[in-house]
């Protein structure tokens, strides 16, 4: 049997990850300084880890409700209300998932038929396009430009809307650009959407990580809640990436449809991770999310150090207002993003991610994460500076 021929067309059609290659080279190298990681460098706060350990000691090792533990859903409902002014009923409007990633997949599968079209700001997180493709629907990129600070512009959105458009993925604060959408920006997008039957999948995983600006969810705008699925999770705000706990909130019909898939595919998120998530929120309510705010302060300093550092060595970059990425342009080197990243890695042992891994509009940019210590960031900038001196 030709085993390779057995792979489904839809899976074959998705190109291999653009990041994989760098990962393979970098992980073989000694002394690599990485700015390539899309996860916090903070370790999950001790109270959260301790709560999980205690639950294991007590023997909490069973399944939970398909929807997620009732106390976690209640806590999430309370959290969304307090932090973002969003009101969702924990009984039938929230589902706990295995990371926000699963929530994205569920949302797409719950609403898409083959040939439907999904609009995705470009550049964006690497998983959206493949997930759309796996459903048989079509991913349609919507270009976001540096001169617009990588925000989604209503005119650009409108150009891509057709009778087949079923959904818009709205990933702000954005990975890889660090762009955010203000209330006015979102209102302009909402005005376009209200005239249509388009569902918004709003991936707000970086909602807590904004600087000098408070995150606004499009679901909080008039008439937008019904058509929006809000996706969030614990990975970024609570430094809990490896726990894999996320959630989706939205109209009961949409969430029930998602739960239908979820119950037959994953059943529930791991109970120990859910217990930990309850503790993360409980502590947050108690101390006003002090540990989140501490992390945001630290990220903010690093962000400034990185932007300033890049400007000093002559890399043009706009100041990102969210997430933990800086997205400088390397166009003046005349290299493609991949060329630049590979040469930089081989020459200076600094790992960054080529912007085109996040979509065609990312070509000519590199994604640099500042989820690292300041010393690490300074060293990386110094090496990138040396590299630029050599090639320019």
């Amino acid at each position, binding site marked *: 049997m030709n085993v390779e021929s057995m792979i489904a067309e839809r899976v074959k059609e998705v190109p291999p*990850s653009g990041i994989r290659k760098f*990962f393979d080279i970098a992980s073989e190298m000694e002394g690599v300084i990485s700015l*390539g*990681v899309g996860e916090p460098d903070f370790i999950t706060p001790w109270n959260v880890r301790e709560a999980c350990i205690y639950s294991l000691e007590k023997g909490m090792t069973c399944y939970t409700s398909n929807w997620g533990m009732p106390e976690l859903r209640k806590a999430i409902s309370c959290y969304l209300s307090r932090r973002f002014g969003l009101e969702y009923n924990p009984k039938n409007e929230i589902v706990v998932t295995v990371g926000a990633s699963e929530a994205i997949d569920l949302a797409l599968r719950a609403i898409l038929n083959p040939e439907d079209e999904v609009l995705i700001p470009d550049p964006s997180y690497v*998983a959206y396009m493949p997930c759309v493709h796996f459903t048989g629907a079509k991913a349609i990129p919507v270009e976001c430009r540096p001169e617009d600070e990588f925000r989604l512009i209503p005119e650009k959105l409108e150009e891509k809307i057709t009778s087949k458009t079923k959904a818009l993925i709205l990933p702000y604060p954005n990975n890889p650009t660090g762009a955010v959408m203000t209330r006015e920006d979102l209102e302009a997008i909402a005005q376009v959407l209200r005239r249509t039957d388009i569902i918004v999948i709003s991936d707000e995983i970086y909602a807590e990580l904004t600087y000098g600006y408070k995150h606004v969810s499009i679901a909080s705008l008039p008439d937008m809640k019904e058509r929006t699925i809000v996706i969030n999770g614990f990975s970024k705000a609570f430094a809990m990436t490896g726990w894999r706990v996320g959630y989706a909130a939205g109209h009961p019909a949409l969430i029930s449809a998602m739960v239908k898939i979820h119950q037959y595919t994953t059943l529930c998120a791991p109970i120990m991770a859910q217990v930990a998530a309850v503790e993360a929120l409980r502590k947050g309510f108690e101390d006003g999310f002090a540990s989140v705010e501490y992390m945001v302060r630290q990220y903010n*300093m690093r962000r*400034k*150090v990185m932007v300033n550092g890049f400007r000093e060595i002559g890399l043009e970059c706009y100041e990102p207002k969210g997430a933990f990425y800086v997205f400088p342009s390397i166009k003046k080197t005349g290299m493609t993003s991949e060329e630049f990243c590979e040469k930089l890695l081989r020459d200076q042992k600094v*790992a960054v991610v080529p912007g085109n891994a996040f979509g065609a509009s990312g070509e000519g940019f590199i994604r640099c994460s500042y989820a690292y210590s300041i010393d690490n960031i300074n060293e990386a900038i110094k090496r990138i500076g040396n590299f630029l001196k050599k090639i320019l």
Partner: protein
Amino acid sequence: MVNEILEILNEDSRRTPEEIAVMLGTDVETVKQKIEELERNKVIVKYNTIINWDKTDREYVTALIEVKVTPQRDQGFDAIAERIYKFPEVKSVYLMSGDYDLAVMVEGRTMKEVAFFVAEKLSVLDSVLSTATHFVLKKYKVEGVVLEDEEKDYRQVIVP
């Protein structure tokens, strides 16, 4: 901004005003001014280094001494505390609630040296009623820093 400066210096006192200015998005002069002010007002008392002496060949022991004292009229515990902290062997002195009054950290080269210091210098003071000496066997965490913590970055090199 003052608290942010203190937070940065508390983490790493070698950060320069230039670096701090970048981190806080302000200018160097402002930072210098604020730091000078903090030093003048003794908010910043001293720039110190946390050393894991156990890793050096320096011979030393530390002891925590619980001291019960009689407070003095008009001066409470301050006068006796001062008598005690003036000794260079004494590294820190805290007034405590509970079973005893002063917690005194003493450092010496040997246990004998510390024991003699307590017997000859501390317990003979007029207001000292009693002492109890506890030697430190191992330091795990000092000033919020875990001494032998080899922090490992478990993250993959590149993650989307």
